[in-house]
């Protein structure tokens, strides 16, 4: 029996910032102090506070240590674990009550207070590589309930009543999707999980798989029971090595416990599960392309209908849901559809996980009830924008979504509201932008991504996105015309209407939404040949203010292309024909004499 549990985050974020080394050092230090029988090390999934990683929680005190280094570990062991003195200087500062100098419950810190963790409920709490820890928190109880007390129709009706909608982006009601597949004749049907998270900056699904892989497995078995399928596939990208490893371990343990395989829990129901690795093509997140890829063919979409529920994987009825959708299901079964429907807005029930990134203090993973406003997410949970800058826009939905400008800062986030303002929920990437971000450049970034990732099967997407990208490139180089803006809109309309799959149908969204809300920035690029945010290099010029320049020569020495000349103690000048606009001189100047505009 251990007297203390040390939870170390083993998500990808904290692993990148060195949590494996922390764990190794901790194990060695515990051994050196003879504490290895008294203190347990638990490697968990993502806590969400990636910005402050590597993070560590010591129970029973609940001390939340952030940005831990291997050198700090020695102190944590000798002070906290051996002598019971909490290492104050390492505590996550928001978790300390300033008045009483005591540790607050994590739920009361600004980052966690407004969150409601349903899909992420076990992330950062259990060791995902030990099935017993999942079972301890009611794991596989929902499966037990489904197999012993419910008919397949009961399961589907429960989901319908809960109002759960697909978390992959489009928001199709999950129960309805299942009912389509359930009425198809058997016996061969399939259950698939889309873990091909491809939006730049999104890592919700990865975090669920890394932190709580069994929840996906449990939900997929339930799905199999509901529609009458006996085989499932999890399609996960090979670029998620930790997630893949934990999934494999989890599937192995579930089989060992008889929770996968023949006659599960003595019910007579059989279900098996396999992993298929994707090579990282964005289009394989599209359902028909994903299934084609599972079949071993080149991952390209095909026209719908027939929808997968009628004719899917290997031509058989198939349901395909996203990781986060599955992660909600066992809780809905156990706590009832009314509980789930009590959260959220009228048409969007439950919670949504967002990967919060960009210009925000608390970068990380957050789960909020639907209907939370963008302002609450950015200012309260995210801690606001660093360096006192002003909020300009938030990008949701990745390359398929759009930008939400400051005027909609107070909009409650749900599927329908986001669509109404020209964005979309998407899978949950949320990138915050401040006054230093150029909206034309952002649109160009996403277009560049879709041009790269278009599979090339249909012409509107293959050629149309390329043409749009070229126009955007022209604009950022100061060669655009006002007619180009009209052409962009026209092209966007045709690509949306005529593309084969969701990739092309949504690819113009970043351009359309920035044109809608930030047309003045486009005009500034086209008419004034100016980039208001100071991002587009071709439109910038660097100049030295002769009144402020002291002639210290520092900039001239740092300039990589020797574009700056002048004599000592005399004002210097920049040769515009040589300048590559790298900004090194601005960073070097101590007198603020250099400006860009």
């Amino acid at each position, binding site marked *: *029996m251990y007297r203390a549990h040390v*939870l170390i985050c083993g998500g990808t974020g904290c692993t990148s910032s060195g949590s494996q080394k922390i764990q190794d050092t901790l194990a060695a230090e515990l051994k050196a102090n003879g504490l290895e029988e*008294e203190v347990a090390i638990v490697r968990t999934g993502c806590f969400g506070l990636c910005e402050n990683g590597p993070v560590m929680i010591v129970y029973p005190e609940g001390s939340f240590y952030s940005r831990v280094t291997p050198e700090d570990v020695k102190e944590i062991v000798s002070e906290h674990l051996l*002598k019971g003195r909490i290492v104050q200087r390492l505590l996550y500062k928001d978790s300390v009550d300033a008045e009483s100098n005591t540790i607050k419950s994590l739920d009361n810190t600004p980052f966690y207070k407004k969150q409601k963790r349903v899909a992420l409920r076990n992330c950062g709490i259990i060791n995902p590589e030990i099935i*017993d820890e999942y079972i*301890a*928190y009611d794991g596989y109880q929902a499966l037990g309930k489904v197999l012993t007390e419910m008919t397949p129709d009961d399961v589907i009706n429960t989901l319908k009543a809960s109002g759960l909608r697909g978390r992959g982006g489009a928001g199709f009601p999950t129960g309805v999707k299942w009912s389509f597949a359930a009425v198809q004749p058997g016996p061969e049907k399939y259950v698939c999980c889309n873990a091909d998270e491809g939006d730049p900056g999104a890592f919700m699904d990865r975090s669920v798989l890394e932190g709580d892989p069994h929840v996906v497995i449990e939900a997929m078995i339930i799905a199999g029971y509901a529609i009458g399928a006996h085989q499932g596939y999890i399609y996960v990208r090979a670029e998620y090595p930790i997630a893949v490893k934990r999934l494999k371990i989890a599937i192995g343990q579930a089989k060992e416990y008889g929770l996968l395989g023949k006659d599960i*829990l003595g019910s007579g129901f059989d279900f098996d599960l396999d992993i298929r690795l994707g090579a990282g093509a964005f289009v394989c997140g599209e359902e028909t392309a994903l299934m084609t890829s599972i079949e071993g063919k080149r991952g390209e979409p095909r026209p719908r209908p027939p929808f997968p529920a009628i004719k899917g994987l290997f031509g058989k009825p198939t349901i395909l849901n996203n990781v986060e959708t599955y992660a909600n299901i066992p809780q809905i079964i156990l706590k009832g559809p009314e509980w789930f429907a009590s959260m959220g807005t009228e048409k969007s029930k439950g919670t949504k996980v967002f990967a919060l990134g960009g210009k925000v203090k608390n970068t990380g993973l957050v789960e909020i009830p639907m209907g939370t406003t963008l302002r609450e997410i950015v200012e309260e949970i995210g801690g606001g924008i660093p360096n006192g800058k002003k909020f300009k826009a938030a990008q949701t939905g990745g390359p398929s979504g759009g930008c939400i400008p400051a005027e909609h800062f107070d909009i409650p986030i749900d599927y329908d509201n986001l669509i109404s303002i020209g964005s979309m929920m998407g899978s949950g990437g949320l990138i915050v932008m401040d006054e230093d971000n150029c909206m034309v450049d952002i649109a160009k970034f996403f277009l560049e991504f879709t041009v790269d990732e278009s599979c090339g099967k249909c012409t509107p997407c293959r050629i149309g996105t390329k043409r749009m990208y070229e126009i955007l490139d022209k604009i950022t180089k100061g060669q655009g015309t006002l007619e180009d803006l009209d052409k962009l809109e026209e092209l966007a309309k045709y690509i949306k209407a005529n593309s084969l799959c969701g990739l092309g149908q949504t690819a113009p969204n970043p351009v359309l939404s920035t044109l809608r809300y930030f047309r003045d920035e486009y005009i500034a690029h086209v008419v004034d040949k100016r980039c208001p945010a100071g991002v587009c290099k071709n439109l910038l010029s660097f100049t030295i203010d002769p009144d402020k320049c002291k002639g210290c020569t520092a900039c001239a020495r740092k300039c990589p292309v020797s574009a700056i000349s002048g004599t000592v103690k005399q004002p210097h000048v920049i040769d515009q024909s040589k300048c590559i606009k790298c900004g090194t001189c601005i960073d070097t100047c101590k007198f603020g004499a250099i400006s860009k505009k």
Partner: protein
Amino acid sequence: MKSLAELKALRDKARGDMGMREDAPDNTRIVVGMATCGIAAGARPVLNAFVNEVAKRGLKNVTVSQTGCIGICQFEPVAEVFEPGKEKVTYVKLDADKAQKIVVDHIVNGNVVTEYTIGAANAAK
């Protein structure tokens, strides 16, 4: 595993091992002084005895934790028991057997082991 009953049994067992990871402000807390003075006087076996006894009896809502120097070094090993809504009880000059008895008498049955308290130690002087 071939039945729901087996699954439930496993859950209850596993849950007991993980109880300490929950925030439970209403728990009864047993806090053992683990500063240098405490460790030198033998606080670690005392701490472990508390942990094991609580675990063995499957006591819910009891947290065993440690703290630094309480300030009464001549009485170490020291442990304090905080029960919600009650005055704290300070036990002194403990060993593993005494710790076990405190769990049985005080925590389980609600009878403070007066002879081990700091009051008794002071009176004996």
